[in-house]
């Protein structure tokens, strides 16, 4: 049988962002894959080195939409490391809350996209409707549906009043029941299972070899959750259960994401319970000395690493980040071959690619 190439992308209905995959197929079976990147390169690294550290907070938040909170969060941690700033304890908890809320919204979005890709539009609509609960919460507490603008150097920009805490608890409770239903559907619905089980297999040894991160790794039974392995902010004081699946397929990754939503709800509830009193931010404008630092955090898609070098001025000398998708998309070359053409978008979606972060 002859081999021919199917172009998936740069603009494809099932991809949210431009990305170009040249898939070699034999009949309907995939035999090879080539990834061409660079369609959303906006020169953000360069831009970040032209602006001062405060302006960068705003800039980095706009790097990507779904993990927008993690970028300024990690950037702040790197800066604070250089300047030796100890942020107030309340701020650490508030940072965790903001991060977990974003994680819920991000994972629900990816799960909804899975349903859309397999043509299960009713399920897609249902999950997106449930996600609205989280979006409403974000809008009420932070004033925005996407970019929270929660972080600032030395703390956070927002505070939770008693009223807002009550509201947050109510919203999380509202989320629990539909979430259980959704998990049941994704685990047991015949049509979802028929399409996701045994598709896009990434064995554990390959997962380790490619160094995949986040839910992709945890779907293959590799636990490398930064929140547990190298706790930051308030995570060392919180109990984080990392959901692990050993299915190694698209289904396993989806279930890991769903379980992570449940875990995020748990974490927020723990935070709200032990939320200490005190200031939410340092009360002076810090001076950043010359130095360099690396900070990392667990974004919804996996480990996010920031490298930052300063020279004493208010403009960073070098700022570089390594995003989770960069590690994950190479593993597509293992997941794809042997699957059918119908599974291409499904497998791509299963690594939850964030192209804006990766190509910046």
């Amino acid at each position, binding site marked *: 049988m002859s081999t021919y190439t199917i172009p998936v992308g740069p603009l494809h209905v099932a991809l949210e962002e431009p990305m170009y995959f040249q898939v070699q197929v034999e009949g309907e079976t995939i035999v090879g894959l080539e990834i061409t990147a660079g369609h959303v390169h906006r020169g953000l690294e360069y831009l970040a080195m032209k602006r001062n550290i405060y302006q960068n907070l705003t800039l980095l938040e706009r790097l990507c939409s779904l993990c927008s909170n993690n970028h300024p969060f990690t950037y702040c941690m790197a800066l604070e490391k250089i300047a030796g700033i100890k942020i107030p304890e309340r701020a650490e908890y508030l940072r965790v809350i903001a991060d977990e809320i974003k994680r819920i919204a991000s994972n629900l979005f990816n799960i909804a996209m899975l349903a859309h890709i397999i043509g299960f539009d009713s399920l897609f609509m249902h999950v997106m409707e449930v996600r609205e609960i989280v979006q409403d919460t974000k809008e009420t507490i932070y004033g925005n549906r996407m970019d929270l603008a929660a972080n600032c150097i030395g703390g956070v920009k927002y505070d939770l009043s008693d009223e807002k805490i009550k509201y947050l608890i109510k919203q999380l409770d509202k989320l629990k029941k539909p979430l259980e239903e959704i998990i049941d559907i994704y685990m047991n619905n015949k049509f979802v299972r028929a399409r996701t089980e045994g598709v896009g297999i990434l064995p554990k040894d390959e997962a380790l070899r490619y160094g995949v991160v986040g839910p992709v790794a945890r779907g293959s039974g590799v636990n490398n959750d930064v929140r547990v392995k190298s706790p930051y902010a308030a995570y060392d004081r919180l109990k984080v259960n990392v959901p692990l699946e050993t299915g190694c397929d698209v289904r396993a990754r989806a279930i890991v994401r769903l379980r992570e939503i449940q875990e995020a709800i748990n974490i927020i509830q723990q935070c709200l319970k032990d939320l200490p009193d005190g200031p939410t931010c340092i009360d002076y404008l810090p001076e950043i000395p010359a130095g360099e630092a690396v900070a990392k955090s667990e974004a919804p898609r996996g480990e996010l690493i920031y490298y930052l070098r300063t020279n004493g001025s208010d403009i960073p000398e070098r700022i570089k980040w390594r995003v989770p998708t960069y590690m994950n998309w190479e593993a597509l070359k293992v997941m794809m071959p042997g699957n059918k*053409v119908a599974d291409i978008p499904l497998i791509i979606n299963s690594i939850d690619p964030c192209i804006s972060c990766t190509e910046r």
Partner: protein
Amino acid sequence: MTDIGHLIFNLLIFPGGLFAIVLGLLLMGIDRKIVARFQRRVGPPLYQPFIDLVKLTRKEIIVPETAHLQAFRLAPLLGFAGMIVAVILIPIAGVYQGLEFSGDLLVLLYLLSLPAIALMIGGSASSSPFGAVGFSREMVMMMSYELPLLLVLLTVALKVGLKTGGIATFSLSKIVGFQLENGALLFDYTMLPALVAFLIFIPGTMGVVPFDIPEAETEIVEGPILEYSGSWLALFKLTNALKMVVVLGLAVALFFPTPLGENTMLNLLWYFLKYLILLVISITIVRTSTGRIRIDQAFKFYLKYPTALALISLVLTLVKG
């Protein structure tokens, strides 16, 4: 046979042509509205398919440079022509007799496969790799749903044929006539499996989720019709609307043609109501409650369940007469 003037009227105004197009588009609008309500959306207005078509006809037609022009242009016409002829073969009991000749069921069977063939020709002529994938998928789909369809038609033909003293009657008007005298086949338990098989066949041939595999939007971006634009695309949409009328009409004619009474208008409304019920059962509910399956899964599915059901009916018919 009716005279030429009558035939042209049937072909262009009623029950084919204008009437069938309006009916088909209206059914599609209703289907979209119900699906939207199931998904808690407001949904488009009922006339949305009509204005979509009007808009499409006003758009520019773009032909890919590498496409085979003749085949690319003829494909939409082929499907449309096939369906417009197929519509006048379907009798509406109490309103319209159909063309009364003895092999119309067989002709209909051939005509029914024309839209799929048109899609295949268009897809492969477009020279797009998605078209090529769509072509092979359409072919597999056709092979999988044609077998149960054939068996169902054969069963009905045998049933009516044996009862009327022949072997098999491949005449729709005779089948309808038989049911008008002896009661609808819907109420005959030996025909129930065949009816279910036919209901399963409908979403497959109409290309709706879970069987919209040849045109899967999120996988191969509409496949065969990806490169079509403007009024040629509109022809494909029209073909689909007509096909819905033909397929649902065939189901009504085969299993439940019973009219309400003597009044033509009342019969027409009754006929419309039957269409609606069939539409909701076999298309709307199916497509809201399922996700798309893979082509290999669909192939296995069709060769297993509908075929088995149709065979049960066939055997029962042969045994019981």
